[in-house]
């Protein structure tokens, strides 16, 4: 629970270096903090503020707008059940109710063992596979009550190694190799793009 680790600070600086304005890196860095600690701590936000060059209040101001960021510990597995229209029509609300009974919690709550948090969420773009849910944003399609219980049992027993702890999104990061990098274009770089200029010369 803390500031970004040395390793993550290095990743953060690399991400900041890709944007014309460092504040643009805020959301990616908040995800990095959440990946490190499972939620976004005050210390991490203060650290991010230093790295980006804004106040900690500005970091919180941005972070608090977005639903994925959590500011207190949540379950190792965030179970997001869609109840929006396509899923509602196919039993999403009933699935949510079943999940509440199975886990003994309401949306937004976490089980006592700290393993599961459930949320009823808006459309997650799997509408033809309704009812659907995500565990830490990994998709599960056309889920029945029985399949839900089995999934929970597997997560409890630790046999689902394909699902990382809450906070981890993509496991592959973009890396721009130094020798291939075109470079950041800031608003101050007002030069005519060279390939447009050369094409105009060729025409004239």
């Amino acid at each position, binding site marked *: 629970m803390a500031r970004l680790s040395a390793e993550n600070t290095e990743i953060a600086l690399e991400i900041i270096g*890709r*944007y*014309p*304005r460092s*504040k*643009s890196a805020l*959301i*990616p860095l908040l*995800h990095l903090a959440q990946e490190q600690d499972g939620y976004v701590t005050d210390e991490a936000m203060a650290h991010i503020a230093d790295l*980006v060059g*804004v106040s900690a209040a500005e970091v919180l101001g*941005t972070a608090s*707008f*977005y*639903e*994925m960021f959590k500011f207190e510990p949540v379950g190792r597995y965030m179970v*997001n059940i869609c*109840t*929006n*229209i*396509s899923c*509602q*029509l*196919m039993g999403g609300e009933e699935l949510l109710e079943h999940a509440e009974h199975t886990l003994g919690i309401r949306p937004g709550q976490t089980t006592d063992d700290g393993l599961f948090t459930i949320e009823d969420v*808006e*459309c*997650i*773009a799997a*509408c*033809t*596979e*309704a009812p659907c849910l*995500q565990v830490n*944003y*990994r998709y599960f399609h056309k889920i029945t009550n029985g399949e839900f219980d089995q999934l929970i049992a597997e997560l409890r027993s630790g046999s689902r190694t394909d699902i990382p702890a809450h906070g*981890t*999104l*993509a*496991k*592959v*990061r*973009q890396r*721009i*190799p130094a020798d*291939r*990098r*075109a*470079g*950041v274009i*800031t*608003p101050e*770089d*007002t030069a*005519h*793009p*060279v*390939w447009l200029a050369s*094409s105009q010369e*060729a*025409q004239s």
Partner: protein
Amino acid sequence: MSTTEVPRIITSRFDYEDSFTLARYEATGGYQALRKALGMAPSAVADEVKSASLLGRGGAGFPAGVKWGLAPAEVWPRYLVVNGDESEPGTYKDRLLMELDPHQLIEGVLLACYAIGCGQAFLYVRGEMPLAQERIATALNDAYAAGYIGRNILGSDFSVDVVLSWGAGAYIVGEETALIESLEGNRGMPRLKPPYFPAAKGLYMQPTIVNNVETLSNLPWIVSNGGEAFAAFGAETSRGTRMFAVSGHVKTPGVFEVEYGVTTFRDLIFSPQYGGGIRNDNAIKAFIPGGASAPWFFEEHLDLPLEKVTVDRAGSMLGSGAIVVMDETTDAVKACLRLVRFFSRESCGKCTPCREGTTWLEKILQRILDGYGRPSDLALLMDVCDNISPGIAWPPKQTTICPLGPSAVSPIASAIERFRPEFDARITQAEQTRISVPVAFPKAVTHA
């Protein structure tokens, strides 16, 4: 019932197990359009896109070539922002394009940057889609290594970095000025207009073209085969092909690429190769033709073609290609409440008619559903709708910065107009139940 024979333009690789790899992409004609474009003048590439009459696939259906042309001349730098924040209820296509064919999207991004003269591109993927983020990150890394992105692309003087960025859960960020705010590290709230188009003042107040994932995924085919070949498919005002997600009460829900403007709703919902008909052969009650923001359609609209202008004139929209089918067993009040609740939850809170209006619409519908509806509630609902969007017309009048609030009016106006007896019955029954329930007052406590 007719289905037309056209090539799959953007889903052509979906059947390969390794559709997302660079090897598969190169083996199936990948990055050939980029090579071709580099031998053309950038303006000639833009002309191909213009002649294709490609309409934006994000929801508003604005012609992509025209949008590009809105960037003011000789103001540099320009940026390209890719809208991959797919979250309109019922919409399921951009995620597939990002997960299954990321290189096609990246090639589209490069073609757009080359034609428009963008110095840097930002690919904004919805936060809740880690697989799409992963596949795009891998594709970008591979494409950089192969010399397709970055400095002096394929030995030319064209250089551009494509940066993967991602969101964190906010529907409103799909609105292009909100997306730009988010990309600047701010709360994702739409910007006050004017300026009306980010093409004039967008990211860091520079000219910025914001294009949808599906729109850009069409570019490699258009550049390879020519804009006219693309425009040969589809109808007069809706060219090419389009992806539609058919969900809800159909036998075989799915995402289908079909000829734009020719295929009808009946084809998509009933044809065996698409939706396969209504489950249990029930009757159809209503369907949403273009996402939660679109007014509902009914049986009499089934034979309309999936064509922008026709659907607009009929009083709704094709929006983001999301067709949600409700059969006769559907509870219209419940469906209506769920859609309104979505807008209420996702309102960013900047404009009062939307923030307060959607909240009250949700409260009133919830109490009707809970059995506490009042006889005056339907009139009250319509009054609130009228305050959010005066006249409750289509296309909706706007009292707000962005269309989110007025969109919440669509499902209510549709459902109440068509299924008013259902709403009335809920309220009447509620009154009767309430009278028969004895009120349990707490016992008076007497103190010694």
